[in-house]
Every structure is written in C-alpha cells, then in structure tokens.
C-alpha cells in the first residue's frame, strides 16, 4: 500500500467522523460539542448540517480515491476534489471569523492586531482542523506540472 493511500485513508476516516458529528448536531440531536473534551475543536455555528454533509462527502471522496488506488490519475482527482471541498468550507469559515472581527465599531473602526490575531486561534471548526492536512493533495498537482 502506498504511503499516500494510508495518509488519505486516515484523513478520510477522521474527516468522516467530524462530518458525522456535525450532521448529528446539525439535525438538533443532543450530542455534546467536542470542545469540552478536545479544546481545539468545536462543532457549532450556522449551516452546521450543510457543513457536515460537505465533510462527509469529502471523507467519502478520500476513501473512494484510496480504494481505487492513488497511482491512478482519476483517483488522485477524486482526492483533490475532496480537498477542494474542505478548503472551500475552511476558507469561508476563517474569512467569516476575520471579517466579523476587523471592524471595531464606530469609535474604533479597526480592531487591534491582537484582537484580529485572537480570532485565528483555537477552537477551530472541523474543516479548519482538516484543511492543512488536505494540502498534501497539492502534491498531485505539482507532480503533473513537473512532468
């Protein structure tokens, strides 16, 4: 088994578990927010159900790519697509946090750099936690450019 298959297999399972938690909480079922046990991870906020569905789909794409074999270009594409989905959710999540913080109100107009940096700290949503690990998929892109 290739190293990248093990890597994306593990990532797929992890993203899937987080997606499942998000869907369950998004449906309003009484499941505790993991922030209480895992300080860096929070599963809360608006559109939780949709974000959970996207995470579950990304997870399925990772696992499908691993099952097909990541030596195949098509499977690499599937994994890359899953990563793109994670980046979309993570990117918009971070953007929302940043843009909510930057305006400091009519007296201040711009929040201090400390306040702005603070919102980039934990706890993070599942997509933000997973997004850096998904960057490995860029290797498939750079491999192609090298050829």
């Amino acid at each position, binding site marked *: 088994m290739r190293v990248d298959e093990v890597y994306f297999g593990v990532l797929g399972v992890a993203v899937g578990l987080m997606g499942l938690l998000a869907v369950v909480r998004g449906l309003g079922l009484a499941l505790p927010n993991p922030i209480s046990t895992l300080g860096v991870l929070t599963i809360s906020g608006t559109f939780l159900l949709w974000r959970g569905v996207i995470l579950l*789909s990304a997870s399925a794409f990772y696992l499908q790519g691993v099952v097909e074999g990541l030596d195949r*270009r098509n499977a690499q*594409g*599937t994994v890359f*697509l899953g990563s793109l989905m994670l980046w979309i*959710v993570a990117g918009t999540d971070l*953007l929302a946090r940043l843009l909510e913080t930057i305006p400091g109100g*009519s007296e201040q107009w711009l929040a201090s750099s400390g306040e702005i940096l603070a919102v980039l700290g934990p706890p993070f949503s599942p997509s933000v936690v997973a997004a850096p690990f998904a960057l490995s998929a860029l290797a498939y*892109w750079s491999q192609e450019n090298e050829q």
Partner: protein
Amino acid sequence: MSQSASVLLMGHPNVGKSALFNRLAGASIAESNYPGTTVEYTKSQLRLNNEPVPIIDVPGTFSLEPKDRAESVAIGFLESEVNPTVVCVIDATRIERGLNLVLEILDRGYEVVIALNMWDEARRKGVDIDADMLADRLGVPVVQTVATEGDGVDDLRSILDRANSSSLASITDRLPSKVHDDSIITGDEPAARWDIVDTIVESVVTYQETDPSLSDQLGQLTIAPKTGLPFAIAVLYGVWAFFSSVAGFFTDGYFVPLFDDHWLPWIQSAFPAEGSWLYFLLVGDPTAVNSFEAFGVLTSGLFVAVGVVLPAILALYLVLALLEDSGYIARLAVLLDAAFHRIGLHGYAIVPMVLSFGCNVPGVAATRTLETNKQRFLTMTLLSVFIPCGAQLGVMLSLIPQYAGYILLYLLVGFFVFGAVLNRIVPGSAPEVAVDIPPLRRPRLANVIMKLSVRIRGFMMSAVPFVLAGVGIVNLLYLGGAVDWLATVFQPVLSGWFGVPEETVPALIAGFMRKDLAIAQLSAVSMSPFQTVMSVVMVSIYFPCVATFAMLIKEGRTSGGIIRAVGGALATLVAALFIWGGLLRVIGIILGVA
C-alpha cells in the same frame, strides 16, 4: 481589404471571441468561460495602418442557419455589413467544428482570416496543427493565437489586410484526395462540407496520445452526479458564505455605524426646516434612530443604495465572475439539466438564472441564447418572478439573516413548481440541445477585475438613481395621501389573504422601483417574524422592478410578442403571488406561526 470595411469576429460560442476583441481593440467587454457570454454585439475601433477600422464582436454561432436569437444577431451582421473582413475564431482543440463554419462563410464569398485560438490548450492536449498547410489548403491566412494571454494578436492584426476569399471548389482542388469527385460542392450540402472538413483535418492535424491532466479529471468529476452534486453543494455553500461574510463586513461593520451614528444624526439636526415637506422628502422621520427607518432620500435611500446594496453586489459579482471564468457554471448546467428538463428548459438556463442572482436585467437578456419562444418566455417569466437579485438578497441578509436562506429556498421551489405548470400549459417546443462543456481554467485576475468594475459601474449608473427616486416617490405619495388610500383599499386582501398589515403598502409601491428598497422599507413596519417572511416573499414575487419590466418588454418583442411575453409574465406573477404567497400562509398556520 478596404480600409473602411469592418472586421467581424465570428465563431462558435466560447472560443474566445470576446477575449480576442478586447486584445485587438483594447476594449473592456466581459469574457467568460461558458457559451453565450455575448448575446448582443459590441463595436469598437481597431487601428490598422493608422486608420480606424470598425471591429465588431458578434454572438457565437454554430452555423449560418440561426437556431436562436443570438445566432440571428451574428448572421444578421454578416449579411448587413458591406465587404466585411471576417476573422473566424476557431477553438484549436476542436478544429473540425470550427472549420465547418469557416467553409460556410467562405462559400458565401466573404474575405476571411482564421485565428486558431486556444493554441496553448491544443498543444497541451497533443493536438498538433500545421497552420501553414491549413492556410494553403483553405487559401486564407491562418494565425495561432492565445487570446487570453495576447499571444499571436499582433500577428493577427498584421495579416488582416491579407484576408482572402476562397471557393469550396478551389479548396477541394487543393486537397490531397478530391472530395466528391463528380459533384459540385456548394454550401447547401452539409454532408459534402463535412467531407471536406474531414479531409482537411486528416491532412493538417496530428493527434498525440496524452494522459488526461488532473484538471481534465476534475472537469469530469464535477459533471458526474455522484461526485459533482456533493461538490456543487460545497461550491454553493461557499458562494453563500462568502457573500454573507463580505456583505456583512462592509454593511454591518462599517456602513451601519457610519450612517446610524454619524450621518443620520448629523443630517437630522443640520437639515433646515424640520417639519416641512422637503425635510420629510429628503431626511424623513426626524426621530428615527437608524437609517432603515428614517426613510428619506438622503438617509434610507443613500444608505440602502451605498451601504447595503453596493457591498452585496460587489461580493456576489466577484464570486460569480470567478465561477464564470473557471468554467464551473457550465458544469452546474450539466448537473441541473435533468431538473430543468422537467420545466421545459435545459441545463444552460442556469446561465440566465445565475446572472439574475446578480441582477434580473442581464438575466432576462441572456435568455436570447435559448432556442424557442416557449423557452425564452418560461425563463424570462420565472426569473423575473422568483429569482431575487443580489441587491435584494443583500438587504434580506442585513435585515433578516435568520430567514434569508429559507425565503430563497421557498422561491427556488416556486421557480420549479410554476415552471412545471407553465411547461404544461404554454404551447411551443422545448428541444434538446447539445452544448460544449468548456475546460476548467484558472480565472484571470485582470478579467475578473474588469468584469467586476463594468458591472459595478452599471449598477451605480442604473440602480442607485432608482433607489433614490423610489424613496422620493413613496414619500411624495405619502404627502399626497395616496399611500393611506391604497392601504385602505388593499387592506382586506393584505390582511385576509396574506395576513400582513396594511402598513406594507408603501413597500409594495417602492417595489415597483426597487425590490431591495421595498424590503428595506418593510423593516420599519412592526410585524411578527412570520409576517416579515410573508411580506418579503410577497415583495419578491409580486412584480418585477421597473428595469426588469422594461427588459421584459424589450425581449418580449422578439420572443413571441410583447403582449404574450409581458401579459403572460403578469398573469404568472398574479397567480404566483396569490397561490404561492397564500400557500406560505397556510404553511404558517399549520406550523402555528402565522
């Protein structure tokens, strides 16, 4: 080529004509990575040997037998221009189809130059075209171009005066094996023309085996339902999240405090003659504490136009431009094709629909690429009734963010339900079409910025005056007593059927001018949450804004007649208002919230 003759850019849709036009003429018109960007012609000047020569970018056409209004425009230009030089723009990755159109144009005796565009993509895909031999075979100049990068544009400009005409018979004579030896080739024989194309392609193009790139794989995966639909959900989520974050950043972060804490108190105290009609008209309520409630031209009008709608439009147009240029819109069209077929349309109706989320006016104009009067009527009507524009969405997000998603969903369901009904009762055909799916491309920053600036400029020129005028007209009607009279007249319907208070009448009047303004005005009315949702849905579907209405009249002329198009649209909106609006109230009653 005579110096005064015009240059026509012709070719299939989405082969880069608009990009080439921008490069040749130094103009700024929108380029997009999907067919049907150009539904109207664009004219500019090209400097050729220090002489100005008119250059015209016409809509894409597959042949000289028009299948829709946009194609008719293109062919109309070809036939009406005196001795034009025709630049046939061909997608070098799929040369054979473009060549068929070239032969048709040559067969009619026009002087032609060929631009083999997307040359870089052709090389990447292993398509190797011997351009010199192609020029020999056709007897017209051929130049390789990459319009988006500007490659080959100078070469193209330098050979425009060598444009040539060439008969099909002479082309046939130059081919290695003579096609249809005993027949006379004419443009009326499509099969014979295709034979010539095949022979030319065989002799000038070599195809090398290449592995599909990651980009090709992604392109395939985004149109396969199993992978494409989850990805579409992610993209649409991303669009909505980006839109609400950016619009909220400007509006809630800066414009609300700017207007509410500084501008409004200042103008309320500084403007003279409080209590006069002029004060009421321009400043509005002197005791209002926020800019939505004041309702003067210089308070609410300015705030809605600049503080709420402009940021929303900016965010939405930016993300739409990225989607358009990446080629993803065309993929959404494929994914939604089955759903659109149920309402008598096909997937490419997504293009006017997506444009309508920016503004209904270009959305209605984009229906020209649809094939039949029935399809155009259905799309125009459904867009103008059920699709909220970006400005309206922006105000909804600002005032009732918790309900905006549900309202949008309810309107989209209405779009398809009423589409299915109209498809059954409106006579006419809804043919299947085969369209190209463009490759996925990295959006060009310069084009995105240009497109954004053109659209924002258009918004500032057209929408802002309507918002300000809308506030002024409603205030004048207030002063004249017309609003109170209308409120009394419509009270039974508003309360009895829709369950909303009569105070919503001014918003309905403002909605004639701008829907965003109408929703802003609703915020000043004291209502329950359900009444707010109900009245926003009513304003959304009850009548298109005046600019959209004008476009309906314009497009209706060539889509079955004004009476049919506008009358049908009005009948639909009345039915939609009472049935779809009434149904929402029933749902509210069942849920115990109405």
